[in-house]
């Protein structure tokens, strides 16, 4: 694993987004990346009817030692908000979106600028000591990957930058396995969406490269803004990737 073993603990990550953004896929890629990197990780998705714009949550546990717990995460220490509407339109199974966030937790929000919140919520987040990071994930996905469908890749890169797990090399392998290696079918809806994505990118190799470029751009964004919770070792071969 990249980073200092003593400082990397366990992370309980709650991802919230809306249908079609690939929240569940992102949780699989993150979780699998941690496993590839030698850590331990489990996840469970939570969604209602599979349709675009409907609320979706997915919960990922990340640790360096054995994980026993299962099920959704009620008290996360990391929140990933894939779409501002989770906050502004209440498109979330958890209301308010930060409910259960542990003290000094991290909130990573996909937005180019701060999302308007009511004063009570801002006060509560402040009293929790929450660290709120805004990452323009969709913007990065369009600029670097050429499609907003890679928003979830940017979010994976961002959390990798923040918690140092998985390291970029493992994350790249995880992205590769998602599209080329032994596939995992999350649901029928996701399978049909995959076909759309594959048509957009003629070749799968190109698909992986573009997706990973988005991952890396978001990862670098997090590092450049000093969001890293733990020191992330620079991996030379990744500089070329």
């Amino acid at each position, binding site marked *: 694993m990249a980073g200092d073993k003593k400082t990397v603990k366990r992370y309980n990550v709650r991802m919230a987004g809306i249908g079609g953004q690939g929240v569940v896929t992102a949780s699989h890629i993150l979780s699998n990346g941690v496993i590839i990197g030698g850590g331990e990780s489990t996840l*469970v998705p939570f969604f209602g009817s599979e349709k675009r714009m409907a609320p979706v949550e997915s919960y990922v546990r990340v640790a360096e030692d054995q994980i*026993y*717990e*299962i099920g959704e*995460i*009620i008290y996360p220490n990391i929140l990933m908000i894939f779409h501002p509407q989770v906050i502004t339109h209440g498109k979330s199974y958890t209301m308010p979106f930060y409910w259960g966030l542990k003290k000094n937790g991290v909130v990573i929000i996909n937005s180019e600028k701060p999302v308007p919140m009511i004063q009570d919520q801002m006060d509560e987040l402040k009293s929790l000591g929450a660290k709120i990071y805004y990452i323009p994930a969709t913007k990065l996905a369009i600029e670097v990957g050429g499609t907003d469908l890679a928003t979830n890749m940017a979010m994976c890169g961002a959390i990798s930058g923040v918690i140092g797990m998985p390291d970029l090399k493992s994350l790249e392998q995880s992205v590769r396995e998602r599209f080329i290696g032994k596939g995992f079918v999350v649901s029928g809806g996701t399978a049909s969406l995959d076909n759309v994505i594959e048509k957009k990118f003629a070749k799968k190799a190109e698909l992986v490269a573009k997706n990973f470029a988005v991952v890396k751009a978001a990862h670098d964004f997090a590092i450049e803004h000093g969001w890293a919770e733990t020191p992330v070792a620079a991996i030379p071969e990744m500089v070329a990737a």
Partner: protein
Amino acid sequence: MAEGLEEEVKTNPQGDVITATAPPPKLEEKKGAAAQRVVDPDYLLLHAPRKKTFITGSEAAKESIRRANVDIAISYPITPQSETMQQVGYLYAEGYLKDYYRGEEEYGVMSAIAGASRSGVRCLSATAGPGLMRGLEVISSWPGGRLPAVLLIMCRVINAPLAIQPDNVELSYMLSTGCILLHAENQQDFYDYPLVGFMVGEKPEVTLPVAVAVDGFFVTHARGWVRLPEADIKLPPRQCYHEAVPMMDNENPPIRISRDAPIQKSNFISYQMHASWQQEIWAAGERSRKWLNRWLGGLIEVVNPTAKTMIVASGAAVSQSREAVRQATEQGADVGLVKIKSIRPFPTEELIEALDHAERIIIPEFNYVGWLAREVRNVIPRTERVVPGGPRVFGGMSMPTELLLEYVLGTGSGRH
């Protein structure tokens, strides 16, 4: 005259001449079940070398069924069971099952399983929550019919308001059916228990259906580490002529388990008949203990056996309890855990012994009614040791370790 000697011209139904000739039969490589070899159950269940894989609970069940030498699977889709039976469909396509189809609905499915099992083949079905409720009338008749089969139950909320998450109150309905009932904790159990279920249920002295329950989504849709043996081995086939009730074929007529004509004449005789038959069903369940002990390594597992506070749990609540034990131990608390693997037969003697020294007993559950607490209180002495109220979560919510710790450490709402 010459017409009869002319070569016959083959046409398709539209009248077009068929000119192509059928290709010679290919000598195909053996695949699916044909490429597997039958091994001793002890070898497959206990001794075969295994490799660690990281798969979902549904995939774990698939790998279990792949090695189970199943003849037929019948089911009807319902979330969160559907993904597992979709995987079983792939197995059918790969040649691991002889037949597989979707029934009309659960009542029809469970009836079809009864028929298939009576014909002597190895049967699999699976359902969840409301589907189990719909099939329950037929399932309740399986044990009396002495019909071995494995039913996978992926627990899901059954009460309104509707939800698809894992509340396991439905298992309380299974307790009284006479079926053997195993409760899997995680993906590994969901691989192991169905294989054990087929072998135990088909033992001559048992001859009963086995339900393997698991808490849906948290296990079926999530990945965990599963140790698997190679895929080229499978269980021996069902030995239907060795069972308590013979299969139905041209020589064995269907058994009559109703108030048969000679018996109908006296209600008293029919009551006696029913009573002795019921006693035999439950006795058969008791006789499964020795096989469950052999292949499950006991009906219970105990962690920290001397601790003064003992958690008793089954299914997903065990995983949450393991984490609670880990965190509580870190904080210096003296906490142990009893995992109940088999709900029917119930580990009565095992629990009395494992809990004899305990001062406090905590029974966390994923349902409102607390059926496991009821079961435990029914068999242990000094029931005042059981902390009231669980903790319990319901409606499909996961149990946060934080809540369990309140009970274990005697803080917050769990102060007792």
